[in-house]
């Protein structure tokens, strides 16, 4: 049994180098970029991660393939260097820069040695500011994108997620996904002029956040960023939903697939909450008690006691910028599907009706806080937490504020949040796989 005093000892040492972790973070505006640097104990290693609002949801009426294609064009050469020369430059110092495109953001990840940080920031700036955008490379990016999309059209988890997102979020909500078919059709007709216009409008420092963590000097990093991004302008803010999504009516959807002996299941609803809403953290803790880890109620019963699944869990997400989702995900063999869904429904209903116990909450709070500090023990973990906090609207002091907020939660707060925001009678159920008798086929595939 781990006593509370031991946990407090962990909290006390959780800050590797300072009484408050936030004291190690330095936030500044550099040429319009929100730059956060953090000097950690690691030697020589620097991790750079960042975001700017240029994700899939940005093209409300335009070609939906353009944001991803824009991101794919960034490592395909700049005005001054072709893609092979850039790759060679990075390879020769063992550094990496990658770009991915999410719902709302273009996401940047880079890793290098301390000595190479100026080179990496220079390269990153050139890729963002002056991409070559050659027609031949654009066609290759399109073919690559279409191929990747087509490869996903038999993936049960991708299709379950697509059908679920479209069922719980209404038209116009930033979190409502397009279908694979829509993306494939859009990619086929995308043109370079649209892409150039997109980059001109959305790529800029105005709402960009860059987090640099590791063996760094705050002043040197600020100077490097200032030099590389000097004179850059533009950029748009994130999309904010006019009002939170309401829970959709209860529904059951099936995505039938051949030769998929494990059925991907999603079960849940729009949460109606952003991360920064007061009820979010209590509901997150309540959700963790229901379905996080091996001791969550779902794993304890549906997997451990009943042996119905390899994996089942409950979570909240997609809520950093707009209201997000509450969901249970699981996989079942077709023969055990009905039993598995029934058990899942039973556990959710019990959780909603009776709430969580004092003991469960105390234990989960300890675990969440302990896990938080373990996650901060790597440079990447620290960088990801700082960036997530920034996207959610928090300053670096939330590094220290988060565990305190978790510790202060009460059972009444958690149970009230569950009752207020979860409706067991308005759940969307999606089953994707070799399901013999579908309830209602999803229209998305």
């Amino acid at each position, binding site marked *: 049994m781990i006593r509370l005093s031991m946990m407090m000892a962990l909290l006390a040492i959780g800050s590797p180098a300072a009484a408050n972790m936030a004291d190690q973070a330095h936030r500044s505006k550099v040429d319009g970029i929100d730059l956060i640097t953090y000097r950690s*104990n690691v030697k020589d290693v620097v991790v750079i991660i960042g975001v700017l609002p240029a994700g899939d949801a940005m093209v409300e009426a335009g070609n939906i393939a353009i944001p991803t294609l824009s991101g794919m064009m960034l490592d395909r050469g700049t005005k001054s260097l072709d893609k092979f020369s850039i790759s060679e430059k990075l390879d020769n110092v063992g550094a990496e820069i990658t770009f991915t495109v999410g719902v709302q953001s273009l996401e940047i990840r880079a890793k*290098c040695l301390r000595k190479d940080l100026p080179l990496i920031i220079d390269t990153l700036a050139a890729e963002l500011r002056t991409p070559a955008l050659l027609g031949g490379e654009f066609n290759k990016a399109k073919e690559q994108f279409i191929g990747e999309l087509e490869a996903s059209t038999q993936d049960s988890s991708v299709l379950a997620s697509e059908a679920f997102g479209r069922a719980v979020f209404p038209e116009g909500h930033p979190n409502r996904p397009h279908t694979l078919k829509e993306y494939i059709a859009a990619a086929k007709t995308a043109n370079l002029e649209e892409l150039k216009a997109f980059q001109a409008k959305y790529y800029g420092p105005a709402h960009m956040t860059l987090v640099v963590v590791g063996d760094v000097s705050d002043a040197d990093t600020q100077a490097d960023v200032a030099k590389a991004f000097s004179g850059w302008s533009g950029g748009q803010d994130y999309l904010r939903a006019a009002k939170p999504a309401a829970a959709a009516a209860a529904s059951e959807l099936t995505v039938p697939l*051949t030769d998929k002996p494990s059925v991907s299941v999603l079960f849940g609803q729009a949460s109606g909450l952003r991360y920064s809403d007061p009820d979010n953290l209590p509901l997150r803790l309540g959700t963790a008690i229901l379905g996080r880890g*091996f001791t969550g109620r779902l794993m304890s019963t549906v997997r451990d006691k009943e*042996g119905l699944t*390899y994996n089942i869990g409950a979570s909240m997400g997609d809520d950093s910028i707009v209201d997000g989702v509450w969901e249970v995900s699981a996989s079942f063999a077709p023969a055990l599907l009905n039993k598995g869904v029934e058990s899942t429904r039973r556990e959710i209903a019990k959780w909603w009706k009776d709430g969580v116990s004092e003991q469960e909450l105390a234990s989960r709070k300890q*675990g969440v806080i*302990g896990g938080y500090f373990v996650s901060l023990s790597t440079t990447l973990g620290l960088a990801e937490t700082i960036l997530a906090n920034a996207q959610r609207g928090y300053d670096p002091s939330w590094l220290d504020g988060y565990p305190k907020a978790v510790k202060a939660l009460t059972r009444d707060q958690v149970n009230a949040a569950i009752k207020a925001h979860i409706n067991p009678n308005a759940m969307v159920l999606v089953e994707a796989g070799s399901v013999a008798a579908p309830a209602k086929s999803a229209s998305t595939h």
Partner: protein
Amino acid sequence: MGWTGLAVLVLGSAAVQAAPDKPTPPPAAAQGSAGFSHVKSLGGIDEYRLDSNGLTVLLVPDQSAPVVTFEVTYQVGSRNEVTGTTGATHILEHMMFKGSDAFNDTKGNSIKQMLERVGGEFNASTSFDRTNYFATVGRESLEGYIAIEADRMRHLWLHEADRQAEMTVVRNEYERGKNDPENVLLEEVMEAAYVALPYHHPTIGWKSDIEHVPIGKLREFYDTFYWPNNATLTVVGDIETDAVLGLIKKYYGVYPHSPAPIPAIYTEEPAQSGERRVVVKRPGELGAIIIAHKVPNGRDADQAALEMLDAILSSGKNARLYRALVDQGLALTAASGTDVFRDLSLHTLYAALTPGTTHEQVERALVAELNKIKTSGVTPAEVASVKQQYIAQDAYKRDGTAAVASELSEWIGVGDWTLYVTFPQRVQQVTPADVQRVAKQYFGADQSTTGWFVPVAPKMEKGS
């Protein structure tokens, strides 16, 4: 919780470069650790042996964060299984979470209850050559975890009711793997490439064995392999040597050496005398190809040259496979890598086809790239670039205790943990001539096993 072995080499790429070349004396603080013999120290890693029972301990002090990763690696994997018990190693790994005499759900102190209460990151995995159990926790929680890990080494509960519940869990893990046609393709390529060695069967086992292996067989497996002299403990992080050795002696010192020798595998793979081919036809959209060749065991000196060859073929946009296949629109991705094993390892070339491209085209392109290395070699600039990448990886690998412990566990499985330190040094010694030599030596057409995943149109399910 399977591990195919491919990760060994990927992680191997991140090995220590700045480590000392030769063994160093033990740290002064550990000289008086009664009951332990210091075996060797290399690259900041100290190896000890618990005299009473042969338990091996690797200590890697790192005070950069107040956390510790503790990992126990058993020298048993699916290579120790035979027909009827395939998958037993993996099922036993699952059963290790069902409770032991002193730590179980009934007492409220089981491993998952303890570790989730303190926020530990934990799991277990089974591969062809080893099984491991690991957690990263705040340093104050280390003793609690060691106590549980030690108790389940010899006092595990193995109840038939638990096996029945866990069997369907494992079967669903098996089914999830079968959802992925490329995973199925790799399994079938391995089944064809290995005739005699137990790498022939997948680590997760055949479905019928998963369903029917009796609890008595699992008990037999446990009582054969779960002993201190068949295990290595790796402790990485904020530790003091004497204190952690004291804890290990306290909890593991109570066990004797195994009553019988740990069984050795004496099977050898017969020479392959011709090209082998497999075709997997499943619903899907795009095809894939794997071209596999058996190469020496993971400890062999030629592995460094093979690693260099793999990086030149597939690391980054300048890599030869990217230029020849991806940039030419033949493949969505293309890769070269080696699953490093205790016995004969497996080298694979892989490509995922683009829409409209034929298997023949892509296979020709993959083989052509191998042949270019056989006939014309690689350039000094290519070799120099890969060596520079290793120097950076040296620093990256030390960022996080779990990653260090995980890579060490894979080398333990291969049979020599010191390769964690020496393998990157070997890579620094590789010459262009070495790369050309291994390409000629190991990549003959008659020694190849080629697998095609051929997508077929999905049949509509009843009722859809």
